[in-house]
């Protein structure tokens, strides 16, 4: 019974990583430069979960297999005076902004929060089961 705590803990860790990725996406909604300072719009990050059967106790846990970078098209905004505006090509005079939809990210954050709380609820149930079991002895 103690090992079912490990399964719920793996879910807590994975949902927290997902929430961090969402927080990064929302923070960088208007970022037009990457870490090296070059003009490149921020691409949204997303997490990929995979089932993890290496935990004892029978039930598979979850682990983050990778944090991927989405390859969606950037959002073009016409602003010829901007220093990052494209100089030539079909998007001349347009600035490339990240294509991050605030509503979608917020709903994903809500889902991650509820999943986190649900796993904490399972941990509480496990703890109270263990306490009830000890009542047989005491």
């Amino acid at each position, binding site marked *: 019974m103690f090992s079912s*705590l*490990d399964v719920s803990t793996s879910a807590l*860790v994975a949902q*927290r990583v997902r929430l961090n990725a969402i927080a990064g996406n929302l923070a960088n909604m208007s970022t037009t430069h990457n870490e090296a300072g070059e003009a490149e719009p921020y691409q949204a990050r997303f997490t990929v979960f995979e089932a993890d059967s290496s935990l004892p106790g029978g039930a598979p846990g979850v682990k983050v297999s990778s944090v991927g970078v989405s390859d969606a098209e950037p959002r073009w905004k016409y602003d010829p005076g901007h220093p990052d505006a494209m100089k030539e090509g079909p998007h001349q005079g347009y600035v490339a902004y990240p294509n991050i939809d605030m509503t979608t990210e917020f709903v994903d954050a809500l889902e991650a929060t509820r999943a986190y709380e649900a796993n904490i609820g399972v*941990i509480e149930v496990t703890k109270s089961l*263990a306490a009830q079991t000890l009542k047989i*002895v*005491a």
Partner: protein
Amino acid sequence: MLDSMFQSTTIPVLEQVMRFSQARHNVLAGNIANLDTPGYKSQDLSPEKFAQRLKAAIVARDEFSSTPKEPLEAGDASSASEQRVQFAAANPLSDVADGLDDILYHDESTGSLEKQVSAIAKNQMQHNLAVSVLSSQFRLLQAAISERA
């Protein structure tokens, strides 16, 4: 006399389990306190290694108590106290929880709060189990002494 009365029960074993879980709780609480310290590597006491050492100590204790010993002479005070000292020194259970330093290891994952908290919860469950079984053992002894259930 009290020593030998307790040695035949599970009370010394449970006492070692309780001391281990208290020591582990202190280490894990230190991890949580240092979550924001830069460069801090979280530590833990390994419960698997502790279980192995406890098992080996129980086997050693059973072998010791099953070898026949000479009966004590009534007027021979010095040899009685010598035998008591020998028995205490040979009791392997008394120093299982004393040398916990060599099962302290550095957990390579850098301090995730959820993992520390769940380790503390599991440790607490083990501690509560040891306490409950210990108190029921004492109640058994008391029933035997007072001859009342």
